[in-house]
């Protein structure tokens, strides 16, 4: 009963503390809004392509290229025949056209301004396709001209390569992403308040009164930790609900598992805070250490900007961030229904928490008073 008494007192005073509420509730919500809105372009997976304007010169006698032009027009490619003294190559260089095509009996030559531009690549791909079909037709005519029509009938023009996205429409948008990473970051910040769970009692001198009462040190410790866990979890729940309902952030179809993973991070953060407070001797020590740890974890864990495919030493550092494990696990659960991804995050969080709690318990047992 004393444990619940102490925990309840902690929860009550946490929710009365305006600074705690602002930090745990308003701060992540504002950060989600700002980063989710400001960096939305970073998360766009489609690229808009405008109409493609092409100059061409056809010196052949055939009408095949003309057919190609009329079909290509349907896809937004606009061909204009070079007339008079217009220099096609120069026009492309000056950026007036996206490409210049010269069609001769020897073949097709394409001039584009930038070989890696999207417009140039599209144009090159379409012309290659046209040339391939032309060559096939030429070969068929040589050996079996009667089969030409059947070879190119509509029924046979099936797609031999079907391109399908492995995760169709299953990539987080900017708000979805920042809802996850800011939530995991703010949980880690919970270590700050946890670091003062016991030290604040010493500073306020209430530790003496607690120890003078017929309550075991273990009960005080468990009560304090429990209160902090509940307070932090409630704050996180409110942040998640807000981001889901107001920002329409995607938290997936398995909220139970997602929240369970987040809960283990809360346990880790609270244990980290209380553990560091026992390991350091100065009152400012825990704040400095935890602030540094959280900031670095946030930076390398992708809380401020998304880190794609890190390599070498950078990958090693990002892998050390608890937020990397958390964010990876949550994104896999939410966007790939990969439940197994929860296991490493759960294991690391709980193992870390266990270590810090053991350190705290041993220190507390050795200490006179709290």
């Amino acid at each position: 009963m004393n444990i619940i008494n102490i925990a309840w007192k902690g929860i009550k005073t946490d929710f009365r503390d305006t600074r705690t509420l602002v930090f745990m509730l308003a701060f992540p919500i504002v950060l989600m809004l700002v980063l989710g809105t400001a960096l939305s372009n970073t998360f766009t997976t489609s690229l808009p392509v405008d109409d493609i304007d092409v100059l061409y010169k056809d010196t052949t006698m055939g009408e095949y290229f003309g057919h190609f032009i009329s079909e290509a027009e349907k896809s937004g490619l606009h061909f204009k025949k070079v007339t008079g003294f217009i220099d096609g190559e120069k026009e492309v260089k000056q950026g007036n056209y996206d490409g210049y095509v010269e069609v001769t009996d020897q073949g097709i030559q394409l001039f584009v301004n930038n070989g890696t531009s999207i417009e140039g690549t599209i144009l090159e791909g379409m012309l290659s396709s046209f040339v391939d079909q032309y060559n096939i037709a030429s070969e068929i005519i040589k050996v079996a001209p009667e089969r030409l029509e059947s070879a190119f009938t509509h029924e046979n023009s099936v797609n031999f390569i079907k391109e399908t996205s492995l995760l169709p429409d299953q990539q987080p948008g900017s708000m979805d992403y920042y809802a996850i990473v800011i939530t995991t970051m703010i949980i880690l910040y919970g270590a700050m308040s946890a670091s003062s769970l016991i030290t604040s009692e010493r500073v306020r001198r209430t530790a003496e009164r607690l120890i003078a009462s017929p309550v075991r040190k273990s009960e005080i410790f468990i009560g304090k930790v429990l209160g902090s866990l509940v307070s932090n979890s409630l704050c996180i729940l409110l942040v998640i609900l807000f981001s889901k309902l107001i920002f329409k952030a995607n938290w997936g179809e398995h909220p139970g598992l997602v929240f369970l993973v987040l809960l283990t991070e809360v346990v880790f953060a609270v244990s980290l805070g209380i553990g560091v407070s026992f390991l350091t001797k100065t009152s400012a020590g825990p704040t400095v250490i935890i602030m540094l740890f959280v900031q670095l974890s946030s930076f390398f864990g992708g809380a401020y900007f998304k880190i794609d495919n890190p390599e070498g030493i950078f990958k090693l550092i990002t892998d050390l961030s608890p937020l990397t494990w958390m964010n990876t696990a949550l994104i896999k659960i939410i966007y790939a229904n990969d439940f197994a991804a929860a296991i490493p995050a759960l294991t690391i969080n709980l193992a870390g928490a266990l270590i810090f709690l053991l350190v705290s318990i041993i220190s507390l047992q050795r200490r006179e008073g709290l």
Partner: protein
Amino acid sequence: MNVLEIKNLTKKFADFIAVDNMSLSVAEGEIFGFLGANGAGKSTTINMIAGLLRSNDGEIYILGKNSTKHSRFAKMNIGMVPQDLAIYEDMTAYENVKFFAGLYGLRGAELHERVVEALEFVGLEDKHKSYPKSFSGGMKRRLNIACAIAHRPKLIIMDEPTVGIDPQSRNYILTSVRKLNEMGCTIIYTSHYMEEVEEICSHIAIIDHGKIIAEGTKEQLKSIITNTKDVWIEVKSAEKVDVAALKSINGVEAISVDENMIKINSDTGVNNLNKIIEHLMSCQMEIRSLQEKAPNLETVFLTLTGRNLRDQ
């Protein structure tokens, strides 16, 4: 019956012996005064009685039971009023008392009654919904006491409960201490204010260097000092007083100056009053009154320890 009994108690901090083989007993119904300068060992002793510190040696008995073996029983019967305010600023007066009383197993209606009773006792019933941050120093001290008495302990330990408060609040607290005693509580009281201890304590122990150097009633302690007398000389201005020169006069044991009052402790066997007056006159100090007093507790303390109680 003894509410508290200490046998050969010792506490060391590294090489420093804070409490040195101390033994004492406090009978039921006493207001027991603990006198000692800073670092004398009284707070360490009190903290060991309250269970805040572990002793290196010796035993403490609360109501006849060993406090180490029966820790819960001992703590249930002790109310601790720490020297520093031990209250939560972010909880109301009612919530503060309720929280601490709840740790002693009180629940429901009984808990509520005890909380109200404690707040009424310290005169804060009208402020039960207020937060301590809006309280004066005296009110905070009273709340500090309320948090220690709601569970009706048999033994209340008050460590400097009147530090830094106005005279009105001090009187209120001293009256409360007497009332608690009349209600059957045994009280251990420490203070830097000798007059407080002299006023309310029925039994006093003087501690120095971790040892009890004198113990007894006020009269018993004063009777220790038979060879000195106190001479209090009020002057217009004590700014020019030459303490060293006064001390050099034959028979003068100790001198303290309190505003315009020069307090001289002197050997009863030496007639040196004329020389003292001559010296003050030579310093062109205008004497307004002169009183010869019997030794008080301060004199006893000064004589036994060689320093004032408020010396740092």
